[in-house]
């Protein structure tokens, strides 16, 4: 399952002319699913800080945070994908076009080893 997700991600990136086979991803789990973000898009991973809510925005827009003087909106993927929310410990700030977005769900980043395991387990 996870491997399939990775594969389709690769494919997607290849279609966008972004990726080669050698692409690296920052992978994380949402619920039982494995997701990945092209590592080159990841600007930084930041510990959880206070969030300011933006009025009159959809629920998955959690608010904004102060990233060294820049205002960055926060997207809560779990809400967006209709999953139950949890307590978060970090933001992953990624770059999309010329804009920055903080994702609020990468509560558990997987190590390489775990990746292999999950990958092979799923493959098997």
């Amino acid at each position, binding site marked *: 399952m996870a491997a399939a997700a990775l594969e389709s991600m690769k494919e997607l990136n290849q279609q966008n002319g972004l990726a080669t086979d050698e692409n690296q991803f920052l992978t994380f789990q949402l619920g039982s699913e494995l997701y990945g973000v092209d590592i080159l898009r990841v600007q930084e991973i930041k510990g959880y800080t206070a969030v*300011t809510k933006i*009025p*009159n925005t959809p629920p998955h827009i959690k608010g904004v945070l102060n990233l060294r003087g820049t205002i960055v909106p926060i997207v809560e993927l779990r809400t967006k994908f209709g999953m139950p929310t949890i307590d978060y410990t970090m933001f992953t700030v990624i770059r999309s076009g010329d*804009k920055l977005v903080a994702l609020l769900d990468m509560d558990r980043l997987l190590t390489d080893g775990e990746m292999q395991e999950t990958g092979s387990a799923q493959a098997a």
Partner: protein
Amino acid sequence: MSNDFAQFQDAFFEEAGEHLAVVEEGLLALEQHPEDLDLLNKIFRSAHSIKGTSGMFGFNAVAQFTHKMETLLDLLRNGQKAVSPSIADLLLKSTDCLKTLIESVKTGAAVDEGTVQQLTSELAAASQSDDKPSSQNPKATQTVSTAGSGQDQIYLITWTPPEWLFRRGLDPLQITKELCDLGNLTDVTLDVSRLPHLAEIDPETCYLSWSMRLTTGKDLNVIESVFEFVREDSRLTIEKTIVPGSEFQVSSTGSQHETRNLQRETDDGSPKPLGEILIESGVVSRETLDQALAQQKRVGQILVEQHAASPQQVEQALQKQRQQESAAQSRKTDTASIRVDTDKIDKLINLVGELVITQSMLSDLGARFEMSHMPVLLERMAQLERNTREIQERVMSIRMLPIGTAFSRFPRLVRDLSAKAGKKIQLVLSGEETELDKTVIESISDPLTHLVRNSADHGLEPPEERLDNNKQETGTIRLNAFHEGGNICITVEDDGRGLNRDKILAKAVKQGLIGENEKLSDDQIWLLIFKPGFSTAEKVTDVSGRGVGMDVVKRNIEGLGGTVSIKTRPGHGTIFILKLPLTLAIIEGMTVRVGQETYIVPLLSILESIQPKPGGVKTVVGKGELIDVRGTYLPMVRMYEIFALQPEITDPTKAILLILETEGERVAVMVDEILGQQQVVIKSMEQNFRKVEGIAGATILGDGTVGFILDVRGLLEIARHGEPVAA
């Protein structure tokens, strides 16, 4: 290597842009006084620079075209042709064409070859048709033609040759011979006072000096040229004796003028007047020049004498000229870079140094902090605050530019508009030196252009109508900028027909902008012209009249946090007043709390804060709530409602109501508590997100979290329409 070249190319485009601006400005000024040779020279130099550099980069199309312009300019400069309106017009058109040519080289955009060809041939034709200079321009030719025909003058020459004179095989006799050729050389005296004792004499050293009197019709430069080869290290004075035949007493106080003292030093490399150049190159003598200059009258004087213009009109024109000149001076050609005074940067560096010191003192203190150090800590914190504030002020001042940058394009615009509309328009600029944030200047250019166009097209009447109404034929558009409080005001004023109340009302009713029987105050009526699609012009021209523009003006100015207001008197004119914040980056704000959230309200829009009396709040069906403030009913907005927050207080009589004003309209906003007042740095929401209804921007609060700045205008809209767009 190619990168380097590209870098030079950028420099070329920047420079060419500057030169083009000089040419255009010069040509505009030249129309006002066609006989100004300084101006012509300036234009010529700039055109020449463009030609030279473009040739160097291989931009042949540009170089060839500029060459054609230059040929014509050269003829004008030499006085072989007079500057006529048609020529000035042709040159202006050519400048535009040159602009597009350069632009095409830069961006690779296509050029209208037809226009280029046509202008090229027009330029060639203008350069060839050999019409003699009209009487408009006699001075230039006169200056040249009288060259060398000066009367006999007596010069007193003292010359102390350099010591190396003999060593280089030069002969002082040769000099005196040449002087004899020039005229009548008399009273040649040899000064041997410097001759040492015979035993000490160096046979190859020149110890001699001469004084002599030369009567000649030739001018100073010719005499000086005789000394050309020995001038270096020479002590040479050539003085004109004032009364021919008088004694030698024309005592030169310094007695040893260097030759170059004879030429007037021009300071800081500004171009020398034509006369000076002519003297230097030996074409005319100073006397001839002075005579010619004495004959030269100002155009204004000539026109008055010929009864072509009244003294008042001339005075007006002069005023305009002065203003244009001052505009030209304060102008800075501006691209993406800012030129900063080194002084400002030096001060900034000093301040940063201080900041670093304060920081290290603080960290030192922090490393071994005890409670007994508290007073020291507080003192250093105060110092840090002082440093920060000073740096902030300095940095902001770097971003400040004179508004003349935005004004400088208007002389040309008005000229073209006046030609197109067949109206006589004069433009008066003032307050160009008023400094304004660079971003603001860039963003007000377009709105200002709209307003000026509008004034020229709608505001000012045609000449006949003006004369019928006992007004001067020439309409005036005034652009003024000045500071007022924390704002900058820019006014666009015309002395035209003014806004027509009834016409606007009728039109607005017709277009369904207002109801038939709606009662509106004058100010509200004037604001109608900012509605999209509104135009009272009977005919649509390519300048304006389509009703697009005024709404853009309003939107742009409001986007900058500014306001537009109108004052008008029927028959006397209209003034548009733009009020803009000095800078976009920092505002003075009041922090307020609603539930758990902190918001910032721009201080400038707060009129007062009140706590309403019980019964002061009225509900109007379908229109929300109103609040009675000393007899006036204002719409009331509950912050927690429109922003969907959990408030602490829901009873207006226990909460705080901020009375906010924007563009003369008021709204009461209900918050839980006022926290305090502070300067906030505005951060863009749009940079990473999008615009949010009711929020003008964000800022970082003291605790590092993000706070939102309220958009008063947006709140007013929400109050008017009841519910926010997205609930």
